[in-house]
């Protein structure tokens, strides 16, 4: 392993790899360490949704910035990411949701997002096959510029592009500890040897909390298992991601026709659990057939699990911490780290290079949890 680097990134997920790319592009010397392999964690386990419809302004801005980057990402990275703007249809089932969604839409519009509230009888104009009355949907919001991409292709795309520009990526390399002097990390001990770095970025996803613990920094993040499944391909017949916070459920069809979706078990306890459950398979089948009865004939190929790195307000933790000056947080994405990665990586790269960040990130620092926080409510938990 080399002796020193400008920036050491811990974690080969989409955020770490994208950051490596934007830093080497700016001329920094970058090293990334990953305990296993690129995209082995949540970046390789999610459904690839990219949405801008959030209830907090910070998340809307992050996601809108991200979409601008996704729109030209294939060209930028020189690879295919299967990015497609198929839209997001978010269903409302209660009067309370209708009120919240209308507030969301008006805030999102004030940020310049093209988004609309749909009445019950307009929902089938977007997806004719959806069993609107059967699922009890009474309204929806629709944003056609939301979409999806293949998260593994995006992550590997960033990693390979970063490596081509000179980033050093060490797979199967674990961080074992740190040497700290005067509130600054001076050396990082890894399973491959020690390395000195000016900045150390904690982008270890659901394991970020464990990395921070090595430095005596307490992150409020908790890991939650989230399960997902995919079917065989069938002729493509809808393009949006369909999502219901009420049923804690989402699904979409990939460009080649596979149905991919997830359901969050409200009884899920925090923990590092990757097991697949029959409870999940049954509930997904129940919801898929309720939402689109004809899906009962489609074969399920595979189910798996990943971890959400969940913060108390479901928003990420970005930027430095008070106690260790050069320890930068890039974690706590709470289940939507993939979709914002291009933007969060750009912002952290700007921060490290001493540039003005294109969005303010101070409100997303760890210190915010000392006071009262505004919770993001548009989440599948």
């Amino acid at each position: 392993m080399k002796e020193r680097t400008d920036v050491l990134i811990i974690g080969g997920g989409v955020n770490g790899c994208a950051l490596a790319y934007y830093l080497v592009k700016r001329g920094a010397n970058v090293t990334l360490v990953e305990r296993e392999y690129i995209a082995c964690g949540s970046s390789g386990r999610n459904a690839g949704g990219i949405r801008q419809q959030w209830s907090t302004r910070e998340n809307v801005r992050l996601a809108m910035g991200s979409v601008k980057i996704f729109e030209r990402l294939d060209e930028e990275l020189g690879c295919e990411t299967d990015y497609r703007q198929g839209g997001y249809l978010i269903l409302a089932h209660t009067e309370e949701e209708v009120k919240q969604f209308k507030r969301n839409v008006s805030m999102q519009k004030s940020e310049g997002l093209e988004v609309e509230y749909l009445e019950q009888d307009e929902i089938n104009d977007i997806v004719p096959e959806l069993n609107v009355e059967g699922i009890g949907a009474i309204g929806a919001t629709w944003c056609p510029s939301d979409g999806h991409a293949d998260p593994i292709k995006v992550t590997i795309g960033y990693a390979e592009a970063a490596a081509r520009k000179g980033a050093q990526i060490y797979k199967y390399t674990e961080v074992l500890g740190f040497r700290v002097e005067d509130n600054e990390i001076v050396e990082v001990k890894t399973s491959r040897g020690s390395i000195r770095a000016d900045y150390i970025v904690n982008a270890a996803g659901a394991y970020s909390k464990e990395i921070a613990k090595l430095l005596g920094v307490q992150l409020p993040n908790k890991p939650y298992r989230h399960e997902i499944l995919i079917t065989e391909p069938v002729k493509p017949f809808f393009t949006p991601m369909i999502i219901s916070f009420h049923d804690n459920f989402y699904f979409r069809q990939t460009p080649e026709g596979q149905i991919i979706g997830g359901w969050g078990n409200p009884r899920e306890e925090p923990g590092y659990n990757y097991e697949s459950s029959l409870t999940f398979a049954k509930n997904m089948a129940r919801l898929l057939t309720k939402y689109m009865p004809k899906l009962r004939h489609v074969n399920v190929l595979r189910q798996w699990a990943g971890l959400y790195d969940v913060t108390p307000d479901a928003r990420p933790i970005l930027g430095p911490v008070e106690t260790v000056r050069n320890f930068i947080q890039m974690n706590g994405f709470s289940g939507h780290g993939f979709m914002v990665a291009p933007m969060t990586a750009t912002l952290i790269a700007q921060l490290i290079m001493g540039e003005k960040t294109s969005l303010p990130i101070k409100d997303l620092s760890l210190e915010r949890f000392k006071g009262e926080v505004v919770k993001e409510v548009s989440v599948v938990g």
Partner: protein
Amino acid sequence: MGEIIVCRCRDVTLEMVEKAIDEGYKTVEELKRKLRLGMGPCQGRTCMRLLAGILRRKAGLKPEAIKHHRIRPPVRPVPVGVLEVEAYEGED
């Protein structure tokens, strides 16, 4: 010369596998993510055995050093409707 198919569900060729190994993807799980092989309807029943042989030959790995891919449920494709009946007859 004709192409040699390793994964017939996803049309992954021997040439693609060998190129990825040269690029540094030297484990079954990494190759699965990089090339999508083993992710089709047969869930790796054909290609994973072939892949182990290619890794042994091309990457110089001993058979015992090759970690096989993680088998995901439901192992064989199962219609959504079958699982749905389970959902209503089961306790969950």
